[in-house]
């Protein structure tokens, strides 16, 4: 079973595959260059104590993103139980 959501809506411990990112915004291009491309596996590790930013792991690196950007990354949920795995 799989369903769609944005990266911002995932809770800690959930992992997903990136479906799409908004295109043409310079800021989002940088996220792609940091490895957040369609098809990449991404896991939410935790949220900062005040709710933001979000720590995600992608392609072996750990990145912190704000909800504004994470909300523009559409993901397909794959595995709710896994704690990050090799994302």
């Amino acid at each position, binding site marked *: 079973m799989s369903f769609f959501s944005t990266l911002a809506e995932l809770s800690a411990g959930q992992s997903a595959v990136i479906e799409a990112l908004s295109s043409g915004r*310079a800021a989002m291009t940088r996220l792609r260059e940091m490895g957040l491309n369609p098809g990449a596996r991404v896991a939410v590790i935790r949220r900062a104590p005040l709710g933001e930013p979000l720590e995600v792991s992608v*392609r072996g690196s750990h990145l912190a993103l704000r909800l504004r950007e994470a909300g523009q990354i559409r993901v397909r949920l794959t595995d709710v139980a896994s704690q990050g795995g090799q994302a």
Partner: protein
Amino acid sequence: MSSAASDSGSPPLLAIVGNPNCGKTTLFNALTGLRQKVANYPGVTVEKKVGECFGLHGQRLQLIDLPGAYSLNARSPDEAVLRDVLLGRRSDTRRPDRVVLVLDASNLERNLYLASQVLELGLPTIIALNMVDLANAKGWQIEARVLEEALGVPVVLCQATTGKGLVELKAAMSQSELPLSRWQAVELAEEVRAALLAIRAELALGGMVGQTASLLEPLYLLSDHDPLHAGFRQGQLGQIERGRAKLEQSHPGWEDRLADARYAAIEQLCARVLRRPGQEPVSLTSRLDRWLLHPVFGAVFVLGLLVFLFYLIFKVAEGPMGWIEEGFGSLGQWVSHWLPAGDLRDLLVDGAINGVAGVVVFLPQILILFFFIGLMEDTGYMARLAFLMDRVMSLVGLNGKAFLPFLSSYACAVPGIMATRTIDSPKHRLITILIAPLASCSARLPVYLLLISALMPGEVSVLVKALVLVGLYALGTLGAFVLAWVLNRCILRQVDEAMVLELPSYKMPSLRGILLLVWQRARAFLLRAGTVIFGISILIWAASTYPKHDSADASVRLEHSVAGRVGHFIEPVIRPLGYDWKIGIGLVASFAAREVFVNTMAVVYAVEDNDEDSASLRQRMAQEKRADGSVLYTPGVCLSLLVFYVFAMQCVSTMAIVRRETDSWKWMWVQLAIMSGGAWLLALLTYQVSRWW
């Protein structure tokens, strides 16, 4: 194939290139030892580090440590410098003959992104695969030979922190012939290639690129997103933007597609090079972060760390600062003893020696703060601090990296502003520099204390006085936040930046590297800012000494000096604030440094033996009357003065460091105008409102 010797006969130049946190600087330090020089690239505040090392057969090799970057599509002056040096576009730095690409093996996929761009540039390259131990700890196995085979360039496994693999790396670096990479991660789409050809022809007409430049040059110039546009002249910018608009119109999203295609190629490569287990063991970093980023323990740890840092900067630095002041004081006495009284002696003792002391006295705080920052950067904790504080700083439009520099400014804005180098976004860095001096620094404390006791004579409880003091700190902080909020909407408005913060793995810090950083920062401060501070101190000394008056009374001599006359001269401007010309002298004399206000007022009122808590000065101030016989230091005047000192610049050292760190006179003057103009307005408001009571 390319020969190691460059055309000019000078030793070959090797550029060290890599992502931030890949261990690039550690490797550079290990290769060069202390044989390195640090300067700035002209026109930008990016550090240029060059050094030398010897190849295996004793031949000299020149090394340049280029700024860490994620991509050649520059998003900051750091990344623009890397792009321009590698393309040979900077007139101050020759194009490197070879590249040493440092890759963090435990983060190979992401590191290969920049690598794939650099390998296409046509420079002979060696890959230093660093941090293999971290990759192994994740259960990864790396087929270095497969990587070498696929890329077509030598791959050397190394461990910069322990020196493992350095000999092999040097051997590869000193080979006389090195192959060029045969890996082409992406092919440009035919229509993009055609568009780039046309744009290259246009850029070549404007002299921006050579007629025969590689297509990659226009490609990376068009994808420049550095808000400060480092490396471009004014006229070139329009051409670049027109070219970008044209390409974006005919091929919307071409940059995004290129980035995706690169990662697709990298994924294929990594599938052959990396063997990763299905379930990775929990890393040390994950285990540490469970505590250090925990909502409660993480916050407690931050608080403890900051209390410790402030204890170091405020209390521990106090000792050496006292020794420096005493030392220069004794030197002054010694000179006074041996030199006959006269202008020369005054210049040496009150001008020069005082001026040097005023520069050197900053060193203890700078050394401590940068040791601390070096430690936090090296271990990887700095990014965690930014992660925890990001939400708070985002309220005023900044990000978490601005937290530590701003906080340090409560001790002193000079090291605080120097610490903004850790902020990679040029916009946030500039805003942080502009607001930092509004944090109430320790030099304001003596002024606050004097004026609070003048405001509230002895019988008021200490608690109330302490509350007023806290109120002043809060007022300055509020001012800084309001200014940040406003600046965020006014300057560099068109910038579209995402906050992306990398949380690197924790690492053992390298003491040698940290000490080197501390030394480089201290040296830069003494050479660049120190000379300006020294010069202005002498000017201010001269202004309060000349022209000379024969009176034995110091207050009369001061009144007749240039500073005294300026105090009179500016009286019309400061009278609406409730001040007279004597306070005017204090304002003028303390323009170089706030704390001078206390001593100057003691001289103005001819108070002998100004003791530690300036009790006699306070008594004298309480008796001071205006010409009409009314009390001068009313609560309104004291409050107005306090507000003035919360906001006014009144610190030449800060101005000198702002000039250096923004590499512009403009921002220094803008900041002076905002702070001192704002201080005047708010002090005016305070005094005029107080008169209604």
